């Protein structure tokens, strides 16, 4: 399942364009709003679902090489954060749905690791 399909299926808003979204295949998912937990739990190439939207999520995603961050409940990062994400090559996606719904959908789609 590619990032492209996930974006389309979940109707996610693209804040910073993913590189080669058709070729990225997230291998796992992680949900938390506590950054240190993400540091512990999220694997490389995973999808991180959070409602945090401040600029530190970019640093975390960058260090962990996550495939993309899905920011839930309509939280919008500021311009600076989006700019930084683009610079660092971190894919930011946004949705008005809550984290539970998004994770449920991803599970349905077959992302179960």
């Amino acid at each position, binding site marked *: 399942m590619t990032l492209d399909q996930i974006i389309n299926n979940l109707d996610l808003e693209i804040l910073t364009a993913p590189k080669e979204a058709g070729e990225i295949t997230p291998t796992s998912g992680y949900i938390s709003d*506590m*950054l240190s937990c993400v540091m512990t739990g999220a694997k490389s190439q995973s999808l991180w679902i959070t409602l945090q939207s401040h600029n530190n999520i970019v640093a975390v995603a960058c260090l962990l090489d996550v495939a993309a961050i899905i920011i839930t409940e309509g939280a919008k990062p500021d311009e600076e954060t989006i700019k930084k994400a683009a610079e660092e090559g971190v894919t930011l996606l946004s949705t008005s749905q809550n984290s539970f719904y998004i994770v449920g959908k991803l599970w349905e789609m077959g992302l179960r690791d």
Partner: protein
Amino acid sequence: MRDLDFSDEPPRFKGKVITDQLAGSITRVEELAYIIRIEEVMTKTLITISPDAPMSDVVELLREKRISGVPVVENDELAGLISTEDLIKCLINGELNSPVRKYMTTDLVFLNSFDYLTEAMKTFARTGLGRLPVLDENKKLVGIITKGDITYGFLKALEHDYHEEEVRRYRASHLFEDIESDRTSLILRYVINHYDFMHGGAASSNIKKALLRLGAHPQLARRIGIAVYEAEMNLIIHADHGGSIHVEIEPHQISIYAWDDGPGIEDVKEAMKPGYSTATEEIRELGFGAGMGLFNISRCVDEMKLESEIGKGTQLSMKVYLKDDESVGEGYQSEKE
């Protein structure tokens, strides 16, 4: 490069999905269009023809030189341009003996040698012409430029960029190889300011990048990045006068020191327990203060020492030992990728 086109609109606005990789190269090409001057890519060896020469000479010239157009020069001045298209008109009329003057294009569009490629691209787009004469500041003909010349100029510049990057990467990944000492190391220093959440993660991101450049395995760079991040955020959150991080990189070990003269930790043993945190509600709302920081560090490094004194400050030292095939700056990168 397949998308290098000469329309007035930048390619990215053409309403199609452009992959990041493509966008990256387009951006550089766009940039180059404002850096490279026309004189750098134009053809300088000028083949010209006199307006009084017969059209049959044009046939010979185009065939011999394998070109599709020639500037017409009279008394050292550009008088016109003659191309295959003009030649076809002449052939239709069966007038190969008439002078070039009769068939040449005199409605001249030209470029200035000192202008940037972007001007050339715009002019090609506007006029639909295939080649343009280039004049210098004295209006003297100094060259001719085609779309092909522009594409070739970009390709050469991009190749140059690529080559430079390769050389830089190679040099960095072999940094320690040619330096002789009893013990060589590279020290990176970062100053961390209290409550500077804006730059939170900057030091650790930079350290991770530096390690990758030095040829570190991505797994290793990630591990050290995580450890430094936690230390960095601890300084930002707790060290009321800020602090500093030093990373000493040696081929076979990486030592990280984070220290501050902040409030100190009351019970170091307690602080090491997962879930223990003294962060305020405000900090927790930002997603910090899960009490996992020090525990995370201990998972990522081979050795860790935490010393603290109330009112004096805190010192955290971490060490990661690299196995032979993990060493950095000794040129192992190529084998890993």
